[in-house]
């Protein structure tokens, strides 16, 4: 495929209110953490150019409000996503338990072409805190059970693993995007192959 073609990767960050979605996005894009960020109302996105395998791609990262009643409006922004990032707070078990329903909700609302192989990435955030309540092992097990979703332990506050996580997000989103393109150009033959590739890569890149 042509490397000159401009690529836009749409990434959606989901998770309960307060897990650190907005902070993670800002840490990745603006390289800073502030405890003056406001709770997200409605939706917003930030863009950032990154290099993935010698290609310059633009990541468009969408952040929405986490409280469940606002989700019915958030779904308007899911469409066309190339990757979905699910975030929980390692100090709040409830936010971990919610991952399943965030994932299901996304798959229903965004209805990606191939839900079984749509790229997700899980981030267990706030590892800088010492009142940890969800173990890395428990999180990893869950990720493995869901088709080997890549899992990262992050701290938006102390910029731990944020860069690495978003590199993986970008790579998997790009794979998804490329696959989607191929699919559109050659509807039938390519599909199965591309899926297989995508899956292998997901597995390799698991950083835990």
């Amino acid at each position, binding site marked *: 495929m042509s490397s000159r073609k401009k690529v836009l990767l749409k990434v959606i960050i989901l998770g309960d*209110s*307060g897990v650190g979605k907005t902070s993670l996005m800002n840490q990745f894009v603006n390289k800073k953490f502030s*405890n*003056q*960020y*406001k*709770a997200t*109302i*409605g*939706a*917003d*996105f930030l863009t950032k150019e990154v290099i993935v395998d010698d290609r310059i791609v633009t990541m*468009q990262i969408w952040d929405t*409000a*986490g*409280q469940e*009643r*606002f989700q*019915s*409006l958030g779904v*308007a*922004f899911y469409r066309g996503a190339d990757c979905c990032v699910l975030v929980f707070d390692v100090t*709040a078990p*409830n936010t971990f338990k919610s991952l399943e329903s965030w994932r299901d909700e996304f798959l229903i609302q965004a209805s990606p072409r191939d839900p079984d192989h749509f790229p997700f990435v899980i981030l267990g955030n706030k590892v800088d805190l010492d009142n940890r309540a969800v173990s890395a092992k428990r999180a990893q097990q869950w990720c493995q059970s869901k088709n080997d979703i890549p899992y990262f332990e992050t701290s938006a506050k102390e910029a731990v693993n944020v860069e690495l996580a978003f590199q993986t997000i970008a790579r998997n989103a790009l794979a998804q995007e490329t696959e989607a393109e191929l699919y559109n150009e050659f509807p039938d033959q390519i599909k199965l192959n591309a899926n297989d590739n995508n899956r292998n890569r997901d597995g390799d890149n698991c950083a835990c």
Partner: protein
Amino acid sequence: MSCSSTEDLPDQYKELFTQDGVLLKACIGRPISDLNSIGMLCVVQNSDGTKCIEWRPNDLITIDSDTQDQEWAVVNTIGRRQRTLSGNMTSDYAAARARIVRIPLAELKTFKVTRNNQQMQFSTKSGVWQNTFYFQHGNAEIFVAYLKNHVKTAKTRHDRNTYVVVESNIDSQALNKSFTELDIFTENTTDVVWSLVSNFKQRPYETTMEAFSKLTDIVWSVLVYYGNEGLNGKRDVSEEVADLLTKSMSALEDTTSITKSDEYEVITVKPTLPPRPCIPRGTPLSTEKWEGLQDTEGRILEVEGVKQLIFRGGVAHSIRPAVWKYLLDYYPWRSTHSEIRKIQKRKTEEYFSMKLQWRSITERQESRFSEYRERKSLVEKDVNRTDRSHPFFAGDNNPNVLLLQDILMTYVMYNFDLGYVQGMSDVLAPLLLLLGNEVDSFWCFAGFMEKIASNFDMDQAGMKQQLLNLQQLLTFAVPDLAKHLASKDSGNMYFCFRWLLVWFKREFSFSDIMRLWEVLWTGLPCANFHLLICVAILDAEKDVLISKDYGFNEILKHVNDLSMCLDIDKILSTAEGIYHQLMSAPHLTDQIRIILGIPTAANNPNDRNEESESEDLGDEEPGRENARNQANGYTRI
């Protein structure tokens, strides 16, 4: 289908346009006692189809609504009043009727607009100004614009304020008649469209503005109707209409734009909105004025008057803590100083007993009470990220952040069904900043929440409804922008979600949001005025959004980035201007009337009378005036 009841009543006398608050300053041949009285300036159509400018004193209208059991009755609808008269009038009424001033349009020679667009003079004989009127509310712009639809004018070379009538009654009588005969709102709609089409076909194309506005009225509703309902397989009818209109309206390029599309919307008739009046903002309600408004025991009797003042200019910062308590229904307007002291005492006790309810939950209780725990942690998370950059809430262990938390937790006990929803901490922050006091802030917050509780519904029905209503208002007021948004997948107006949820809290500085909120709390000049604020902001961004061909993402980004870059006074003034434009639009639909909480064309006139009687006012006469002013969209200063 929305339609006016005017069309289907046998009475031919019709008011085509009315403007309230017009003072008769001079009138040749009238006794001085008739002058300087306030009334309503209208353009009316007589039963023979001729039209005239008519000024009617207000006391006549007062009598009208007082005497419903008389044999004659007055049917009031917004902007269109009609009457059925018979011989049995009271003598008062007859006397008042004698004071009506009439200027037949056919005789009108010149008119002149002076004194900052607030004065209008009319002449039917060269060299003499027979009538002078003074527009107390707003100005004569809309009236002149309307008048120009009926008479062809030219400006004189020496005096730019004087208009010479070159042709009066420019619409053809025949055309008028054919519309009446169409009886458009009772027949099968498809037939009506066809007969409309064939009638229109036969008309010469030198259609005047008047004829056009009439047509728009009808065609618009027909199209809107079909647009919503689908054509039940008869789409070709509307296409035929579109084609015909394309041909016949090409002469009116300024007012119509016709676009072809494979979808249902084959034609867009740019509604003929009257020009937008520019209404300057007033000065804030001052301490002196506020004190002057209270009687010796502290009661505020001129409630409507106070609200009008606040609507116009807001409240001076130093008296905000006092005035907001009334605006947010913590203190009733008519309570005396001693009553207020009792209220404070009672409300303080009530607050602390609710606070105690959650304060006394022990840690062990909490560990078995997940719902409570979740709410508490949600509140905690949000207060910790509420306006922390403002000095009042800045820094670690800030006691004001704790106050936010306590008030919101107590609100959870006050309204457990609703609980805490994101956005509430934003709503509370300016109140606490201003009032400083926990109890006052709580009750004012509770009062504010009364007004916007539906924003926080579990099913978000209230928000969805508002987004829909906003889209409908925008379609009517700024159709080209609404069309652009729809074409970019943004017709759902989601990008305005933040504006609506917390009433623009995130878009303005603290001092500006205080101004905006106090204006909105007055409930003037109509329901859902905050939606017109949205329309005003979007209207100012229209050129950028359209000319740069912004899509879904860019629209959202652009709108989000407007935060802290908006001029509150300009927006308030524009929103009010848009409101007046809508009110005087000849094609105003019931859909819009319902959103703005004004009576629909089909409404029972008695409802309106009851409304004005229940107005919370001391003085009878201004009371009526206010009610009417409000209904007609003119705010009394």
